[in-house]
Every structure is written in structure tokens, then in C-alpha cells.
């Protein structure tokens, strides 16, 4: 590989790093390492393969566990959230009901007060009716 190509690849790598495309950079750098390994130590592949697969399997297991854990956490959280939401709704409904009851009671009390409260009238001297009916 010519020096110019290497410099170009380096610059591209740096550019990609700057713009955050780490996946591309990783591919490029992996290719670069792989090709370098092929060139320098072709036997290393034999040792690294089983290690990688074991690691991948382990990762897969961990990922599965994580996923399961996440799922359970998610489910629990969802349940909690929905429970909280339900409780909140119930509380709101109760408060609303109480409020309406208070309003109704208040209205009733006012009505009772109106009925109970004796009214004062102003009159002139008028003959009082005697009837003996009460």
C-alpha cells in the first residue's frame, strides 16, 4: 500500500471520527487490523476465532439476560406507572366527587339556611287576625 493511500485512509478515519461515525471507523480499523494480522500473523485467526465465538455467546447470554431483565423492569415499571395512573385517576375522581358533594351540601345548607333563617319584614300598624285555628 502506497504512503499516499495510507495517508488518505488516515485522514478519512480522522474525518469519520470527527463526524462521529464510529461504526464505519470501527469497520475500517477492523479491516485494517485484520489485513495487518493477515499480513503479519496468519495463525492468530485460529486462536481468536473460538475466543470470539465464546465471547459472542457469552455476550448473547448476557444480552438475553439483560433483555429479560429489561423486559421485566419495563413490565414492572409499566405496571407501576399504570397503577400510579389508576390511583391518580381514582384520587382525582374521588376529589371531584367530594368537591361535587361539598358543592351540593353547600347548596343544600344554603337552601336550609334560607328556609330556616327568619325573615324580618317591615309593616305599619295593621289589624292582627284572630282566628283560633292554630
Amino acid at each position, binding site marked *: 500500500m502506497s504512503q499516499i493511500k495510507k495517508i488518505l485512509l488516515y485522514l478519512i478515519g480522522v474525518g469519520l471520527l470527527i463526524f462521529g461515525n464510529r461504526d464505519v471507523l470501527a469497520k475500517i480499523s477492523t479491516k485494517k487490523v485484520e489485513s495487518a494480522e493477515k499480513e503479519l500473523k496468519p495463525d492468530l485467526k485460529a486462536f481468536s476465532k473460538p475466543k470470539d465465538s465464546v465471547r459472542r455467546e457469552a455476550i448473547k447470554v448476557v444480552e438475553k439476560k439483560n433483555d429479560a431483565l429489561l423486559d421485566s423492569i419495563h413490565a414492572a415499571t409499566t405496571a407501576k406507572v399504570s397503577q400510579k395512573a389508576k390511583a391518580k385517576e381514582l384520587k382525582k375522581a374521588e376529589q371531584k366527587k367530594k368537591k361535587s358533594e361539598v358543592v351540593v351540601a353547600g347548596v343544600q345548607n344554603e337552601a336550609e339556611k334560607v328556609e330556616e333563617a327568619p325573615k324580618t319584614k*317591615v309593616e305599619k300598624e295593621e*289589624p*292582627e*287576625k*284572630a282566628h*283560633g285555628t*292554630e
Partner: protein
Amino acid sequence: MPSSLLYKTQTRWLFHSHIKLKLSIFYDDSIFDELFETLEEVNSKYNSYTKDSYFDLINQRAGRFVSTDGHTVALLKKLITISDDLDGEFDITVMPLIRLWGFYKENNHLIPSTEDIQAVIENVDYSNISIQENGNQVRVGVKQEIITGAFVKAFAVDRLVENMKSIGITDAIINAGGSTIYAINNESHPSWPIQVDEARKGGNPLFQLRISNECYSTSSSENTYLEIEGKRYSHIISPKTGYPSENKQVGIVSRDAVVGDAISTGLFNFDKDSFAKKMRSLSTKYEVEGFIVDKNGEIVFSDNFEKYIV
């Protein structure tokens, strides 16, 4: 000449009646609470229909002495004297007869048999009321029962008049259910007018009275009666015969509301001739005047009643 003065009025429900107080416009509304409180106190302490009032306790414990207060004893003594003066036609122990006639039943009203009336009348006798003034102890006989309907409202009115005068009210009128009306007057407003109509709903006007520092009491059978086999029977029952009176109306002007109410109730059981005679003796002793409308609609005035008519 009607007065041009302005008054404040309040009406409240007490003693199964509308009680209206009317006094000078210059008083604050809060005075009504204080005045009605006097009436409420009487209602709670002395009304036989109020549970655990003195008269309720006397009835509950018939046959045994019950501790009361000085007012109960003074009131009973006054009522017993009036009963004597009315030859027993006024009797506060008449309750068993009223029950017998079915005034506390909703239906199945029947004219009681003569035997039943005679059996019950034995328990109607105010002279069986025993009073021990030392300790204000009162006892009625076994199976006896006092009914306060004929006097407790008037007693409350008398107490109220006393209270009003003590706080300086000199111009007011108390209308207790249309049957006990007390006028308080001063020099600038010397009398209050009272309209007396025939004792039936929508009855024609009879006359207008003017009373001054006096009470007008009236008894009639208009609103409290029983209808048995198409005939109306008054709630005022003669304690001597056991039968309801057939008169239509009695009106009495007196200085004391209890005296006026008791006399108008008692005289309701008199016929027109005995009414005129009895009024002569009563007017000397109690300063009362009055009239009766008998069962035929005939009106008889006491000797000096017409001075009140305007």
C-alpha cells in the same frame, strides 16, 4: 285613627303555631333571637309534648311526686283556681278524654260509648293534682295526664311580655297562632287593632277590637276537630260531661294571657246564658271581658265587652 309608625316583624314556628312578634323599627334584628329564646325556653321546660319537660315528667311518673320549679308550681296553682272559678269546665287533666275521642288516632274514629266515657272521666279531675310547695313537688293521680295545650303558649307569651317590658319595649304586639294576641302600648301608640272573624275558613268579619296592654284569647273548633259519621266534633271537650262542646267561638280580653286562654277554653263549654252569668263574676275577679258565639251562631257579649269594638 291608625298609627303611621313603622314596625319590624318576625314569625317563627313554635308550640305548633306561627308566632309573630312586631316591634318598633328602631330595634336591631338581633333582638328577635333574644325574644324568641324566651318562648323556646318555655317550650322546652313546660310543654307536655316536649320530652322530659316538667309536665312530661309529671305525666310519665303519674302517682309519684316529681321535682319541678317555682314557675310550674305557681302556674298550676293559678290554673287550679281558674278551674274552681269555672266550676270544673276547665281542667288540665282532660287528656284521657281527648285520647278516648281519638284526637291522637289517624283513623277509625268512633263516638265513644257512654260506659267508656264514664270510665275515663273518673281520671279527669284537677283536684287530684297534689302540690308540695316546699321543694316544688308535683304529683298527678295514677292514670291521670296533664295536657298543656290550653295554657303553655299563653304562659310563654306572659313570660315574653315580662321580658320585653324589662328591656324597655313599650310598643309591640305578639300574635301567637291567632289565638293568643298580646298588645304592649305606650302613650304615642295607645292601642293595637285586632280583626275578629267568624270561626271558619273564609268566615265573614265579625268586628274589629282595639286593645291596650291586654291579651285577646280565642277558642274555636275550626281547625282542630274530628269528623265522625259526617259530624264535626270539637277538640274542646267538657271535663264534666265527656262530650265535645258545640259552640263556635269564645273571645276573651284579659290582662294576663294564661288567665285569658284558660277562661276562653273553659267558657267554650258553657251555653250562652250561663256564659253571661259567669262573665259577671269573672270580670270582677280577673278584669276580663268577652263574647261567645253559640252553636246556633248567636253572639252574647259580656257587660263591658263592647267598649273594645271600634
